[in-house]
C-alpha cells in the first residue's frame, strides 16, 4: 500500500507545489492555516485538478498530466473525512453509511455490513437518528463509518479534531486512533496541531506557503526541526535570527549574544531556536552559553510559571525569551529581577532556509 503525490497548481498569488511518498502508516501534513493542506487533499480526491504532476495510489494512476489521466472522484477509492464531516443532513445515520457501500452487494449483505460497522463504531441504536441529533463525537464516528463502508484504499483526514470542543477531543482522539490502527492503507492526516501529529503520525511533511518540505520522521521534527516553519509548528517559541560566528558558534541577532552550538553549521543557516524547557535558569553565570537576562513579566499558570525575560538584544518581540518552570523551582530561585539562562550546545536548534 503506497501513495505517491507530486503535484503543482497555480492559484494566481498562491502556488501549490507538494511532493511526498508514503508506504502505509499515517503521514501528517503539518502547516499553518492557508498553506495548502486541504487543497492537497482535494487534489488527491479528484475534487480539484492540479496543473502538473501525478498521483499514484498502489500502482493505480489517479492523475497524470502527461498521460492525460484524471480519474473522477467516484473512481479513486479515497476516503475523505471533511473538517465538518459533511454528513447528509436529510438522511439518517443508516442512509448516510449505506451511501458509500458497494451497490453490487445483495441487500441482505449490505444490511449485515451496516450492522457490523454500526457496532464497530459504537453507533448501534443511533441508526435511525439524523446527524443534527448527534453530538460532535458521534457525528465524526458516523462520517468514519460511512468512509469505511465504502472500502477506500487511502484515508484523507482533514483536521478531524478541529470541530470538537476541547473536552470531547481526548475521547474522540482515542477512538480515531483505533480506527486508524485497523486501517491497512496509507492515511494522510492534515492538521496544524503539533500534539495531533505527535499522537497520530509516524512521518510528517511540513507545508509552508503552498510548498512541501521533505518528509521526515515525527521525532526528527521535534528533536531537530530543519526550518523556521517546522520549528514554529513543532511548538518552539524562542527564535532568533542568526548568522555564523565561528566554525561551531552562531551569533543570535535578536538576543544579542553568541552561542556555542557544538557542531558544524548548516549551509543556509537563517535562525536558531531554543525550546523553553531546555533553558536552565541560575542566579550566577554558570554553565555554557549563559545569557544575562532581565525579568519582564511572571505569568502564573495552573501548574507552572511562565517567565518572560529580556535578553541583551532588547525587550521587544523576538528579543524576549519565554521560560516555563515548575512553581517550586521558581520559588527556589527567590523571585529574582535578573538571572542567567544557559543552554547546552546540543539544545541549540539550527534552522536553515528551505530551498
Amino acid at each position, binding site marked *: 500500500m503506497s501513495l505517491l503525490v507530486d503535484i503543482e497548481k497555480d492559484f494566481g498569488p498562491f502556488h501549490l507545489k507538494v511532493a511526498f511518498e508514503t508506504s502505509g502508516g499515517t503521514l501528517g501534513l503539518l502547516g499553518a492555516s492557508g498553506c495548502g493542506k486541504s487543497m492537497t487533499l*482535494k487534489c488527491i*480526491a*479528484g*475534487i480539484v485538478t492540479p496543473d502538473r504532476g501525478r498521483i499514484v495510489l498502489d500502482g493505480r494512476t489517479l492523475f497524470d498530466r502527461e498521460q492525460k489521466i484524471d480519474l*473522477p*472522484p*467516484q*473512481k*479513486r477509492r*479515497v*476516503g*475523505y473525512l*471533511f*473538517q*465538518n464531516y*459533511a454528513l*447528509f*443532513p*436529510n438522511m439518517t445515520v443508516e442512509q448516510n453509511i449505506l*451511501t*458509500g457501500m458497494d451497490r453490487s452487494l445483495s441487500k441482505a449483505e449490505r444490511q449485515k455490513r451496516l450492522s457490523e460497522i454500526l457496532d464497530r463504531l459504537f453507533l448501534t441504536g443511533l441508526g435511525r437518528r439524523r446527524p*443534527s*441529533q*448527534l*453530538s*460532535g*463525537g*458521534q*457525528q465524526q464516528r458516523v462520517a468514519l463509518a*460511512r*468512509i469505511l463502508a*465504502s472500502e*477506500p484504499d487511502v484515508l484523507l483526514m482533514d483536521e478531524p479534531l478541529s470541530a470538537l*470542543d476541547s*473536552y*470531547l477531543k481526548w*475521547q474522540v482522539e482515542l477512538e480515531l486512533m483505533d480506527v486508524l490502527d485497523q486501517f491497512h492503507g496509507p492515511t494522510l492526516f492534515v492538521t496544524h496541531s503539533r500534539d495531533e501529529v505527535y499522537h497520530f503520525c509516524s512521518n510528517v511533511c511540513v507545508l509552508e506557503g503552498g510548498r512541501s518540505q521533505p518528509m521526515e520522521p515525527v521525532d526528527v521534527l521535534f528533536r531537530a526541526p530543519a526550518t523556521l516553519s517546522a520549528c514554529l509548528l513543532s511548538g518552539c517559541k524562542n527564535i532568533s535570527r542568526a548568522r555564523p560566528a565561528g566554525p561551531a558558534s552562531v551569533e543570535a541577532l535578536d538576543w544579542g549574544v553568541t552561542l556555542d552550538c557544538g557542531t558544524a553549521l548548516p549551509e543556509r543557516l537563517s535562525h536558531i531556536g531554543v525550546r523553553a524547557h531546555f533553558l536552565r535558569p541560575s542566579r550566577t553565570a554558570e554553565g555554557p552559553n549563559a545569557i544575562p537576562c532581565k525579568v519582564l513579566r511572571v505569568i502564573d499558570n495552573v501548574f507552572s510559571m511562565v517567565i518572560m525575560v529580556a535578553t541583551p538584544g532588547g525587550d521587544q518581540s523576538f528579543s524576549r525569551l519565554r521560560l516555563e518552570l515548575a512553581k517550586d523551582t521558581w520559588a527556589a530561585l527567590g523571585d529574582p529581577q535578573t538571572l542567567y539562562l544557559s543552554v547546552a550546545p546540543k539544545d541549540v536548534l539550527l534552522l536553515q532556509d528551505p530551498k
Partner: protein
Amino acid sequence: MDWYPLYNSLRIAAVSTVLIFFLGLFAAYYVAKLPRLVKGILDVILTLPLVLPPTVVGYFLLRLMGPKRVLGIWFLDTFGIKLTMVWYSAIFASAVVAFPLMYRTARGAFESFDPDLAYAAQTLGRSNTWIFWRVRLPYCRQGIIAGTVLAFARALGEYGATSMIAGYTPGRTATISTTVYQLWRTGDDVSAYRWVMVNIVISAVVLLTVNMLERKDRRPKKRAVPAPEEVL
C-alpha cells in the same frame, strides 16, 4: 356563478409551475457553474421578465408566436395547432413572467449549499445526478418550495401578457384576472367582488405558506449536544 375562470386559471398556473420548476432548477444549477461574465449576462436575461412590464413580455410573445410569425407558422403547419388566443397560450405568458421568481430563489438556495456535501458524495462513488436529486435538492428544499409557491402565485395572477396572447373569451380563455377586468368594464360589480374575494383568498393562502416556510428556515439549527458518556 360560472367557475370556468377559476378552473382555467388553476390549470394554467399548474402547468406553468411544473414547467418553471424544472426549467428554473436547471437554469439555477447550471448558471451558478458558469464563468463570471457569462453568468452575469445570463442572469440579467433570465431575471428580465420579473422587472419588465408584462405587456412588453406579451408583445415579445406575440412577435414570436403570432399566427404570421416564425413559431406560429411552424406550429400551425407542422402540428396544426394555434399558439395564440387559445387557453394554453396563457401558459407561455405566465411561465415567462413567473420564471424569474423560481430561478432566483432556487439560485439563492443553491448558493447556500455546502459544496463539501457534494464532494463527500462524489468520493463515496455517487453520480452527480444522484447528488443533485438526493442531496442538493433536499438540502435546499425550503428555498425551492418557496420559489415554487411564489411562481405559482404569480402565474395565477398573471394579467398583462395573458390578455395580449390569450385574449378574453368567456368559457374558453377567461382567467380570474381577465374576468375581473371584464366584469369591471361591463359594470357587474357583484360578480367582480366575488372574483376579487376569490383572488384575495388564494393569494393570502400562498403568502401564509411562504411565510411558514421561511420561519422554518430561520429557526436556528439545533446545536449538537454531547451525550453525557462522551463528556466523561
